[in-house]
């Protein structure tokens, strides 16, 4: 391999990483909120698919990407409402209800796609979001384009990342939320309503997963494919473990993952002697490895996945 192609791979990774990391980051941030409140939502995969199909349809027919993101958020919240209802109000098993959401989203996104776009062999394409170059700053060599030349949603995501970090660890409500995840009885004793917190966290988190799907469609791929997330929702859940329930660590994890993903996209061209199926395994093997590294000393919210009994 020549040094030129090494350069090409390196720059492709640097430029491609951030867009690839964003959908998973959005979903993982939502799941971080969820889990800090003690709710394990394994339906992220299905919710992302629903976000993707609704955002795609909205953008296709109205060409209004803000509306597309809003609708994707709403559908994510709606799906998670059912999860919250099952796991908070009914105290049902969260793994089961999450898996049910995954199946529903998986199937329904395909059904809706066929309803709107029929059975055409080549899917319709939408214009992906234009990149916004921030004047002057984006002219800084290398880093300039990387940080200041992304699409408008990127900046929103980074702001919400910082906001969620601030919210969880520096505000009273954030502390309450984490207490609900650790010990809902204590939270109740100090006058916090655990059920309300769990409902809101779950619905907001689900909305974020919907946004993740929307981002995937609107800015990365520009089209909808059946089951296009291919496990990204579960990888997002894995990132929460890797990030040890802290948003900034989750962000680092998502960047690592984005880099692996781009490497895998470019490697297929450059390592032709390796069967491509082995390269396609990479994101999943990588997830196994990072979750193993993180899992060794991870301390999860004590009441994660457990229903809250009032007595």
């Amino acid at each position: 391999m020549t040094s030129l192609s090494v350069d090409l791979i390196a720059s492709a990774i640097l430029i491609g990483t951030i867009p690839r990391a964003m959908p998973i980051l959005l979903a993982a941030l939502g799941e971080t909120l969820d889990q800090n409140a003690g709710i394990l939502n394994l339906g992220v995969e299905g919710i992302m698919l629903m976000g993707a199909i609704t955002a795609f349809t909205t953008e296709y027919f109205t060409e209004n990407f803000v509306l597309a993101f809003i609708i994707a958020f709403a559908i994510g919240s709606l799906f998670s409402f059912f999860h919250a209802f099952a796991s908070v109000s009914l105290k049902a098993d969260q793994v089961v209800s999450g898996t049910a959401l995954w199946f529903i989203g998986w199937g329904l996104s395909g059904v809706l796609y066929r309803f709107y776009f029929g059975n055409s062999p080549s899917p319709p394409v939408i214009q992906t979001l234009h990149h916004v170059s921030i004047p002057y700053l984006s002219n800084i060599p290398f880093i300039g384009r990387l940080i200041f030349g992304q699409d408008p949603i990127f900046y929103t995501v980074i702001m919400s990342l910082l906001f969620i970090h601030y919210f969880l660890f520096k505000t009273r409500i954030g502390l309450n939320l984490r207490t609900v995840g650790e010990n809902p009885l204590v939270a109740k004793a100090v006058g916090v309503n655990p059920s309300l917190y769990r409902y809101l966290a779950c619905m907001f988190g689900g909305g974020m997963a919907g946004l993740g799907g929307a981002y995937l469609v609107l800015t990365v791929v520009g089209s909808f494919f059946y089951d296009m997330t291919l496990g990204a929702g579960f990888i997002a859940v894995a990132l929460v473990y890797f990030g040890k329930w802290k948003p900034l660590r989750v962000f680092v994890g998502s960047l690592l993952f984005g880099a692996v993903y781009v490497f895998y996209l470019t490697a297929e061209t450059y390592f032709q002697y390796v069967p491509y199926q082995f390269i396609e395994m990479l994101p999943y093997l990588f997830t196994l490895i990072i979750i193993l590294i993180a899992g060794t000393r991870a301390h999860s919210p004590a009441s994660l996945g457990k229903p809250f009994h009032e007595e």
Partner: protein
Amino acid sequence: MNYLRLGQIFLSSLLAVLAGSILLSLFGIPPITGLTSLFYGGFFSEYGLNQTLQTMTPLLIMGIGLSVTFTARFWNIGGQGQYVMGSIISTWVGLSLSSVLPQSLLILVVLFSAFFAGALWSLPATLMKIYFGVNEVITTLMLNFVAVFLLDYLVVGPLQGPQSKALNAPASAPIPAKDMLGSLLPGGAIGYGLILAVFLAVIFFVLLNYTNFGYELKLMGQGYEVSSYAGVDTRKNIILAMSISGGIAGIAGMLQVFQINGVLLPQVFSDITTSYGYVAIPVALIASLNPIAIIISSLFFSGILTGAYSLELQYGIPIDIVTTLYGLVMMFTLIGMYLNLERLIKKT
């Protein structure tokens, strides 16, 4: 109480299918017409019933396997990967030993190798959970992807048969006809694989309800700490349960090759209609993890799947509708079960 529970599940499933059938009207089919056609195509036409009983075999076997780990609230979502590994190893062993062993012996060897392969594939997730506390849902799921890509490679690589190579088709060499499992009725309706599956259902019903191991698993379902206090070796039980569950999924993969397909074919992730490892999850859950009840739920689920094919052929309704139905059935039965139980507890 038990009959009540069965009734609840039946009612919730029915409601879920009714709710799902509203989707049919999106495609201009009145829900009643669609439902009739779904059930006729799945259960009452001769071809449909035949197909349903075939699809039922892997679903039933994997459903039973999952019920073992699910009873201990250990979520093995990796049935798909274990099933794929079972099909790979059994094909490889079967093809290599076909000329050496007589059929009866070969099937036995293949069966054990498939069990071993499935059990082995479940091991990394088990160990990661036990020693590092890593969530098993994610690890087992990631291993599914790895297994499916491995299969993808093998059927165009080392395991590709000479005929498929000439046709450029991703498939292994066909299993010789003499090695294939037969069936009870002519036409292949009730294969020996299905009989084995029902037999396993009975065995596992006894295992879960009348043995110490089954009792310990149920205890673990109430919480690992509690059962540790009660003197249960939770680690040993998880390893055992997962190995059994994975091994049985491996056998399902072997039967798919040796009873139904006669050849090793690649898997498509997105295609739930062949991803029986995922379908087996709701199959086990809506049967309340009772192996005997899984006979019924697997029949129900495979019938819906077959029926959905005829819906697609007749009315052009996308087959994905069946995934939605599965999810809805799962959600509705979950809600149904917890809703009523709550009320019962409050009343008494």
